[in-house]
């Protein structure tokens, strides 16, 4: 079942189109990557989902219902431009934002306590935001985003500004939020950064959706049956079933990219190789989302 269904959404500003008839679905309980270069329309789409703005035409369904103000409290949004009230104490700020999302004071207080213990930031509660480092502020903001236990969490460029340790911490939190049934939307232009996290993606370019679906399917569609082999020996492929795309050799160690032809399987290639050389590594070359995106954009331009 899909938690969010976007159906033909179009949004135009005074002189440019931010979204042009975009449709896709986000399955419940997945990590969804909303990918595209800067200015593609990702933030516009997020603002429509979070009801900051409205679409000119098209519909958005949340859990099967047309989007309505009541849904706001089931969403958590971490905007790309982070910001908190600078002169407000961390604890008060978290409480305030949680109450605005509809939590009662006592419940919010209990949850804040649990989160600060988890992130080991208890001693920050009485500090003003402006006294914290940027990374600390991001942590606080992350807590503010998920404090009301939203079923849909939208993170715009979530890892920008985090050092690797904190980025990993956030990654783990995101995974455990998914375990608990939340759906997470990642919006980013750095596609490689979320590739391994995402279950599903949608690619947006110039206001249009280019492609969407489960990451695995997309890769399968775009994979080229190419394998990289590293080994010892003199590789000479003469079989018509295999095509050598690239080959280097250095001090007896070779590296070759080979494509399978005529419906042969990787095992066929492996068998063929084992008889001739010593195989050290045998890896399928899967196109990265980035490569797929570039290829796809080129296709649409030529079309």
């Amino acid at each position, binding site marked *: 079942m899909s938690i969010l269904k976007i159906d033909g959404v179009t949004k135009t500003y005074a002189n440019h189109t931010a979204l042009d008839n975009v449709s896709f679905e986000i399955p419940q309980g997945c990590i969804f990557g909303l990918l595209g270069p800067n200015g593609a329309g990702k933030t516009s789409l997020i603002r429509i989902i979070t009801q*900051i703005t409205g679409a*000119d035409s098209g519909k958005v369904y949340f859990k099967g219902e047309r989007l309505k103000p009541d849904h706001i409290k089931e*969403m958590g949004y971490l*905007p790309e*431009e982070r910001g908190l*009230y600078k002169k407000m104490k961390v604890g008060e700020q978290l409480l305030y*934002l949680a109450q*605005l999302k509809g939590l009662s004071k006592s419940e919010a207080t209990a949850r804040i306590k649990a989160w600060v213990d988890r992130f080991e930031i208890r001693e920050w509660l009485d500090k003003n935001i402006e006294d914290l480092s940027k990374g600390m502020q991001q942590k606080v903001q992350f807590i503010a985003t998920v404090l009301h236990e939203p079923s849909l969490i939208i993170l715009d460029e979530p890892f920008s500004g985090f050092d690797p340790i904190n980025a990993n911490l956030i990654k783990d939190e995101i995974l455990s939020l998914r375990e608990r049934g939340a759906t997470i939307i990642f919006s980013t232009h750095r596609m490689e950064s979320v590739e391994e996290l995402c279950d599903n993606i949608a690619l947006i370019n110039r206001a249009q959706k280019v492609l969407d679906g489960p990451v695995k399917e997309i890769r399968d569609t775009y994979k080229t049956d190419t394998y990289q082999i590293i080994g010892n020996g003199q590789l000479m492929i003469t079989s018509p079933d295999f095509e050598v795309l690239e080959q280097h050799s250095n001090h007896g160690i070779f590296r070759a990219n080979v494509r399978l032809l005529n419906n042969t399987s990787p095992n066929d290639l492996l068998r063929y190789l084992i008889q001739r050389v010593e195989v050290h590594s045998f890896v399928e070359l899967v196109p990265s989302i980035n490569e797929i995106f570039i290829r796809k954009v080129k296709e649409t331009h030529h079309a």
Partner: protein
Amino acid sequence: MHKIWLIIQREYLTRVRKKSFIIMTLLTPLLLAAFMILPSLLITMSDEAETVMVLDESGLFEGKLQDKKDVKFIPLAGSLDQAKMLYQETDNTALLYIPEMDLSNPEGFVVYGKKNISIQTQVRLENMLEKEIENQRYLASGLDRETLDKIKANVSLTAINLSDQGEKDNNAIITSVAGVAGAVIIYFFIFLYGVQIMRGVIEEKTSRIVEVMISSVKPFQLMMGKIVGIAAVGLTQFLLWVILSFMAVTAVSAAFGVDAAPSPAAQYAAGQVAAQGEETALKDPASMENPEGQDEFASTFNDIKTSFANLPVALIFFSFLFYFLGGYLLYGSLFGAIGAAVDNETDTQQFMMPITIPLAIAFIMSYSIVLKNPDGPVAFWMSMIPLTSPIVMMVRVPFGVPTWELLLSMGLLVAGFVFTTWIASRIYRVGILMYGKKVNYKELSKWLFYRV
């Protein structure tokens, strides 16, 4: 509604807890008290009694120059040279020499001083001598001073309003004061706290919290919450100022033993006495102390009291509250819109103009035209236009305004702030998410009709 309430609370509490707020709130009444107490304190300090040595060779003034509160006379005998030497050794203020003379031709008075004798002392002594000479002349011609005082006439006019409500004492000055005081407070309140709204919006914009906020609440709720929260801050400060000023003034005057600080009423009473009796006062500074002068003072003071009592206090108070809040809401939302339209405070200048100009005009006109002619066409129209009515109508109310005019003005003000709030919220919802764009009026007018 619940969310607006949360926003109001935050806006209120964060501001009220600020050090600057607490310091301002405590310091202002103290300064006010100081300003009220200092002058009277200074007067009492400079009121050190002057001592004048008198060498009276004529013998006409013996025992006639009576000691007053702030001037004492020390009679001397002997020659002028002796007297001068004696005077040099003391630190008395002056030496008055009255030569042998004839009542019909009083001449040759000299006053000696170590420094320049002040005009005030000189005039005073002259007056006393003149008066005494007059007395002696009356006596010589068979009249005494008391008979003459009985003959003297003193007229003061009481102005009375004849209107539907019957007779009312009227005092233009007091009426003006009541109105202008209200108008001044409204004027400053709008500016002080309007700018706070603007700053608050800019702060939310620059700290980028605004996107988080409006993913939880509607822009309109955020704006109204801020406006109402800051209004509450302003009212709190105003109320504290009133209470604390009163306490501070009372405490300070008690501590320094100064006559209760001159209340506006007393100040005006003094002013009136000065105006009415300028001539006599100049000729005879001591006249304040004779019974006649005191009577006059008391009666003026009573006039003022009755004038205050006769002002429609309840009406003035109600109108004050109404125009106070109405004017603040009208301008407050515009200030909020300006904050949303710009990226930082330096860019606000061009948009401040249309707000400052009507306010300033209303303020200046109140003094120059409305006060002189509270029922004239300028006063009428300016008290109808919502941008100027909070100030101008406030000045007019104590003079008495026909009910229909008051109701129309209030109705228009309500319509006015509904309208400005509508405009402001349209600009606000677009502006708060707009960064790095230099906005002009043309752009703003487009925002009004954006679909968001």
